[in-house]
């Protein structure tokens, strides 16, 4: 008998308590397997003692188990944090959230409006001169090219014509002194 087979039989003997003469003969001649047997028996003894110690764990006559199914803890959600705590804190959090949203809208919408205006006037002839009172002049028409909002700023919006916006243009001298001409771009 080889030692591996002897170990398997030793474990079976530990579990079932069966007699095995061939195993006994092997143990008589193998010190390694005798050492293994001693350790196995000690380990089994320790495990048995642990079993006895824990036998009375649930038998202390305590209160009956509450058999209500426990709800699983919810995962974090914005609603849980925003609406938790005293009323004042909750109101403050909600107000802050609303303020942030409104502020973002305030920032986004004017940019979009100005870009739309830029697109609209990119090829439109508009009055360029502006009087101090803000009323538009028809003396000079300028055709704007390009759609960059940085090329002009809103100078006035006459109350009589709320749909009209007057822009200051940044003049860009393109031609040199050679031609003597300049163009507003």
């Amino acid at each position: 008998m080889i030692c591996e087979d002897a170990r398997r039989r030793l474990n079976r003997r530990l579990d079932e308590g069966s007699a095995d003469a061939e195993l006994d003969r092997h143990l008589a001649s193998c010190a390694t397997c005798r050492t293994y047997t001693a350790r196995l028996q000690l380990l089994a003894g320790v495990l048995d003692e642990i079993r006895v110690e824990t036998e009375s764990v649930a038998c202390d006559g305590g209160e009956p188990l509450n058999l209500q199914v426990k709800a699983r803890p919810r995962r974090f959600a914005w609603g849980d944090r925003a609406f938790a705590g005293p009323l004042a804190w909750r109101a403050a959090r909600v107000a802050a959230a609303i303020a942030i949203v409104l502020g973002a809208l305030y920032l986004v919408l004017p940019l979009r409006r100005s870009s739309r205006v830029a697109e609209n006037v990119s090829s439109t002839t508009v009055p360029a001169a502006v009087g101090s009172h803000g009323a538009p002049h028809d003396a000079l028409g300028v055709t704007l090219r390009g759609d960059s909002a940085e090329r002009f700023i809103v100078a006035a919006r006459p109350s009589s014509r709320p749909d009209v916006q007057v822009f200051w243009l940044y003049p860009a001298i393109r031609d040199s002194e050679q031609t003597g001409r300049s163009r507003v771009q």
Partner: protein
Amino acid sequence: MDEHEPNASPTLGNEKTSGLVGSHQREKPNPLRNRFAASPSVRQRLVRVAYRFLWNRDDAEDAAQEALAVAIAKSGKLRDSEKWWPWLCKIVVRQCHLQGRRKLRRGRNDSWAMPASANVWAASIPAERAEVKALVRQLLGELPRRQHDVLVLRHFEEMPFEQIAEVLSISAATARVHAQQGRERLMELVLRHYPDGLG
């Protein structure tokens, strides 16, 4: 049938069911449901099994409670009512594993700090024997899960391998192999802690 026999099924009787059955009265009646709810010994056995897996009384009660709730909810799936105990053990073992994972996530560690002085294998003094037992309980948790489960069910619950096979959904031969490998691994771990081992 005596409730205290290992494989005896609890009787229905007229005892109170601690309000559990009342909460399920709207549902279709299931004869197994009362079986689990009516017997305190079933609950105690479940707590004991769970304790031997988790080594913490509170966690064991939680796991047993969850297991009972799952068992009652799924009692219609039990095909052979004579095998209710292995079926229930399977549920509680699974709950113990889940409980153990939750503990790991929360960072709880119930390990015992062991003094490195005792000669483990020759321990005969009760104090050293207690240290040996504490060490073995700790090292059980370091075994691979299958080996750990088989050893706990075999040595602490004294289940036959055929029943262990049903609980863990493996064959009896595989359960025997796991038992042998678990014991050898346990011996190896003990010797690693105490290299001066055999006195």
